[in-house]
Each structure stands twice: as C-alpha cells, then as structure tokens.
C-alpha cells in the first residue's frame, strides 16, 4: 500500500484508475449535448428572424400594388394616410431619410461626447472622479428608452421651440438629441474598453519623449485603439437606427423626405409602431408593409454590426 506522509492514498489512485468514472463520462455526454443544443439554439434564433422577415415581407413584395424598384426609390410613403389600396404609395426613402436624420443628429452627440468621456476616464480621471462618473454612466445606460422619449417631449422639444419657433412640436432634432443621450454610455463604455486595452508601455514611451498627456491621448492611445473606437461608433449607430420608443414619442408621425431637422420625421421603427397602433388588420398589404420596412431595417443594422465586428477583429492591434 502506498502511503504518503501518513495519509492513505485514495483507492482510485492505488488502482491507477486515473480517468473519470463511467457514469460521470456518460452524464458528461448528455450534458454537453444539452449545452450544444442551447448554443445551436442561438443560431436557430438568427435563422428564424431571417426566415420570418423574408416570409412575411414576401406577402408584401409579391402583392400587385408593390414593386421592388418603387419600394427602394419612391419618395412617398402613404401606407397609413391613404385608405384605398390602389392609391397607396410605398417608397421607403422618406422613412429612410427620417431614420438617417434622427440617427445623424444622435451620432453628432453620442460620438464626440462618448469618445471624449472615454478618453477622460481612461487617461485623466482620478479615482475619485471615476467613482462618480462610472456609476452615473451606468445608471444612464440602464434608464429605459421610453423615459428618454418622454424627456424629449417634456424638455428638449420645448427648449428647441423656445430657441427657434420654426421647430415643429414633434421634430427630428429633439428625438435625435434624446437618442444621442441614450447612445452616449454605449459609445463611452465600449471606447473606454478599447482605450484601456492599450498597454501602459506605449504611454510611457510618449512621456519619455517629452509628450504631454494630450499628446499621448490624441497622438498615440486613440490611434492605437482605433479599431475598437470605430467599432464602438458603428455599434452605437446601429443601436440608434433601431431605437423605437423615443422616435415613436418625439419624432412625429408624418413621413417627410427632406433634410430639414426641424420637421416631423417618421422613422422606420416609428412607422412600425404607428402601423401597429392603427386598426388595420393582420393580412392586408399595408400591414405586411411593416415587415418590408423591418426587413430593410434589419439589413442595415445587421450590416453595421457586422462591419463593426469585422473592423474590431481584423484591425485589432494585439499587444503582448
């Protein structure tokens, strides 16, 4: 019998049975099977989303009143206003322009503010300021989107109208500002992750050359983390495109094809909500048009997210 420091060695070791017991291996196989099923379930979810969008929007695109060319290039969208099906115009450009107006304004706010806040947090902030800023940003990130919509009609829109009476009550700018505030914490936390992944040795190298902290941040750290920063910006962009409740409350309900940020601007998501609010029945062409819009929305956001992923993976600088 092998004895080690007075303690008896377990039976399994004495008999040189180093592998796990048979029952453990059998249950192992079952469990791994279940885990794989869960992981594959997430792929099935993606497939379902795509199948659902294509199948339901096929009902829209295959109806005689709709042509794909007109859908992609038409500058009038009257799915809700027009009662007679033959006169309804399905051109997605007004919805697209509304979405881009709101998203553009949102990004004008979220990108610079989020990036600069991230630079401050990773390069300058003392521990005490971090302890205030980080939780504040987390709380801001956790506030439901419908609250930002309410904030837009409660405060931002009246403030804009006070600033210049030419703003409509519901306008692209107030919705855009609210969406921008909503995306700010997202840009900030993703960009900060990227910035703090840059090794300290690079910063020390700049200091040793006599660079200031600003030189370090702007000249070295941000370029070194550029792939992460850009992917953060793209993710925020796609989040803003898909934002629904804020635009449903604050951006208005008429689809306008213009560049004027003071006007009402129904977005793609805003249209989906308006259509569901209306009393049109499931099965009509107008109702199915919302799946066509959703498909367009999905394609755009998916492209953005994918691009962000690719940039982050391909252009990531790996430091040892």
């Amino acid at each position: 019998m092998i004895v080690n420091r007075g303690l008896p060695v377990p039976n399994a070791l004495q008999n040189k049975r180093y592998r796990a017991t048979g029952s453990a291996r059998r249950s192992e196989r079952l469990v791994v099977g279940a885990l794989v099923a869960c992981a594959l379930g997430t792929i099935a979810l993606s497939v379902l989303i795509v199948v659902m969008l294509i199948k339901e929007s096929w009902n829209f695109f295959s109806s005689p009143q709709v042509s794909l060319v007109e859908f992609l290039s038409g500058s009038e969208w009257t799915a809700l206003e027009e009662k007679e099906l033959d006169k309804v115009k399905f051109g997605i450009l007004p919805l697209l322009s509304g979405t881009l107006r709101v998203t553009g304004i949102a990004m004008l706010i979220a990108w610079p503010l989020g990036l600069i806040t991230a630079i401050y947090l990773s390069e300058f902030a003392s521990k005490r300021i971090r302890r205030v800023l980080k939780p504040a940003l987390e709380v801001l990130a956790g506030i439901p989107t419908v609250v930002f919509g309410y904030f837009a009609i409660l405060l931002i829109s009246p403030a804009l109208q006070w600033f210049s009476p030419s703003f409509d009550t519901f306008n692209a700018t107030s919705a855009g500002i609210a969406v921008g505030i909503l995306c700010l914490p997202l840009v900030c936390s993703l960009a900060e992750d990227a910035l703090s992944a840059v090794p300290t040795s690079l910063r020390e190298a700049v200091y040793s050359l006599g660079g200031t902290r600003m030189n370090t941040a702007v000249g070295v750290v941000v370029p070194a983390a550029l792939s992460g920063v850009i992917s953060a910006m793209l993710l925020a962009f796609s989040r803003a495109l898909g934002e629904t409740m804020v635009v449903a409350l604050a951006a208005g309900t008429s689809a306008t094809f213009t560049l004027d940020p003071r006007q009402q601007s129904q977005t793609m998501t805003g249209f989906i909500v308006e259509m569901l609010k209306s009393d049109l029945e499931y099965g009509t062409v107008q109702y199915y048009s919302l799946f066509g819009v959703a498909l367009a929305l999905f394609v755009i956001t998916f492209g953005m997210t994918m691009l962000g992923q690719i940039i982050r993976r391909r252009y990531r600088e790996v430091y040892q």
Partner: protein
Amino acid sequence: MSELPKALESFNPVEPSPRTELQRRRDRWFRGLCLAIACSSVAILGLLLISIAYQGATSINSTFLSGSHDPENPEQAGMYPSIIGSLLLCLLCGAVSLPIGVAAAVYLEEFQPKNRWLRQLHGLVQLNISNLAGVPSVVYGLLGLTMFVYMFQLFGKLEKNQVSGIDFWGVQRYYQFVAADDLTVIMVPLTDRTKSTLEIQEACPAYDTDFNPIELVVWDSRTPAPSDPEVLSRTVRQGEVGAAVEIYNWYYFRVPFGPSLLAAALTLSLVILPIIVIASQEALRAVPNSLREASAGMGATRWQTVQQVTLPSALPGVLTGAILAMGRAIGEAAPIFVVLGGNIARRTGPEHLMDSCVTMPILIFAWADNPVEQYRQLAAAAIIVLVALLLVMNSVAIYLRGRT
C-alpha cells in the same frame, strides 16, 4: 555618434521654451474640456431625473399605486396592474432565458473543441451572438408576433381582438344558471364550443360554484315550486337560458398564444438572451485557470469542473449580468408593444399565462402619448416608480459584483 537633439541642446529646466509652454497650456485646456464634457453626462442625468421628479412627484399617492388606468378621470388613474404585469413578465422571462443563456455561455467558454470544424462552428456561434445583440428589439417583437402570437397561422387565422385556437389544459367552460331561489349560481359543463348559450329542458350533470357535483332539479313553472330551500338552491326553471363562462387556471395553455403574457415573456427572453450569454461569458472568463486545472488534476471531467468549480465561483458575475439583463427586460417597451399592442385598460395584473398584460413602459408610453396634460404628469410619476425599481435592481447588482 549621434547628435544631441535640439531640444536637449537648448534645454533649460528653469525657463521652458515658448513651444513647451504652448504645449502645456494646450494640455491644460484639453484636460479641462474633457472634464467638462465628461461631467456633462452627469449633468444630463441629473437634469433628466430632476425634471421628471419635478413633473411627477406630486402625482404619486396610494390611489396611484393601487388603482388602474381610468380613461375619463386622471385623478383616479393608477398603475397597479402594470407593476404586477412587469414583475411577472420579468420573472417568467428570466426563468426562460437564464438557463439557456448560461448554458450557451458555458459551452462557448468551457468546452472549446480541438477539432478544426467544430472550432469554426464555435466561432460562428460567437459571432452570431454578437450580431443578435445588435438586432433592434422591435425586430424581435415582430418575430414574437409571427412566431408566438400568430404561430405562422398554422392553427388557422387569428383575427385581431378575438380569442380562438386549440386549448390544451387549464380551462373549464360552463353555462351559468341562476337557481330558482335567485341566489345560487349553478354551473353546467359546456360540451359544444360553438354554442354560446344553453336552454335547460331536462336534468343534466351540474356543479355548484365550488365545483362539487349537485343533483339538478328542473322545475316546470306551471307546477308548484319545491318548498325545501336546499332543493330550491339546486333547482332551475325549465326553459332558463344560461350563458357560457370560461374559468381559467393560471397554467391555462393554448396555441396559438395570442397577445398574451406567455408570448410577451418568450419574446422578451429572446431579446435579453444575447445579453445574458455575453455577461455570463465574461464572468466565466474571469475565473482563474488554475482552479480548472486543479479540478482536472483531481480527475474531474469537464462538466464536473464546471458544475462544482467554475460555475460557483463565477456565480456572482453571472447573477450581476442576469440582474442587469432583467433591468433591460423591465424597461423594454418596443417588443412588448408589438406583441401585446398598446391596450392599457386593465384592472388587474395577468391572471393566467394566456391573459393579456400591461407593463410599466407600455403604460408610460400610452400616457406620454396622450394629449391630456394630466396624463403626461401621470407618465412622469410612473417613470419615477420604474426608475426607482431599476435603481434598486442595479444596486443589488453592484453589491453582488463587489463580492466577487
């Protein structure tokens, strides 16, 4: 031998060159700008909370917390059904997505295969989860609408505002009669769902309201009525017409789900699934490898290691992520709006799985969208309740994170 740089040649530590001075000044300015902008996010948060508190604080009282939506009278309106609805929805949604999400994360982190093809599958799942996290929630709502509410219309066409489908369990259908003493209610089981009323001609199996079988007596009103009150309480006049009623147990189940609590919960669980997977993966990644190696060294299989070593030590992180995802689920409005519609006229919380349901964000949306100024104030009050609930959940999450 290399030359000395110019800057060092004329280096004067006491009196820096104008260029250095400029650089330093720029640095100070830049730092100030960064600080100002960073603080502006705190300022925005403060402005948002203060303006909403100012708008809504006066409306919070006991009527508001216990009442339900009142379309005529804003003073009497309340949000009780939406609080219950949100909490139930959140629980149900967590019960569905938490096990699946953690299992997917465990597979991705702890069972990385060596085989090349399987590795590619692994990468695909990982990429797919990042993409799912970027899908707009309203698209998930549409998926829920076709998959859960209408079930691709496999079970016949479901009209708006009309409940139909195939029942599985949890529902009893009866015709309701008033007994001859005008007090007791008698239930007669329903067999044919197409008939919404039943005319009593002869005795049939019947129950009282506690579902105990009783012996039904049919009384021809031309003859004298039974005198015994006990008999009278189970007597029905001949020719009396009873209307169909449905009694649901909480586990009532039918397909398609229709705009119901279950459909909304399943849809929401799809929305938060990627968030839970990503958070759990991060928590698992933070477990030091030495623990896994020690466990493997004791002869444990990979699952035994996960079950007894990795998961317990990653649990605080997993729970933190789960709570944050629940917070997201409670605040999410778009997918629920798509699945349930914007109807907020309910007096109670959902009573069974197939019952419709109001949640706080939907109520806030409907009130904020209402042109009447008083309802907008109520929306602010409801926001205060919602944000307070979320803050409580977040502090629990931060407390748990502090314990890792």
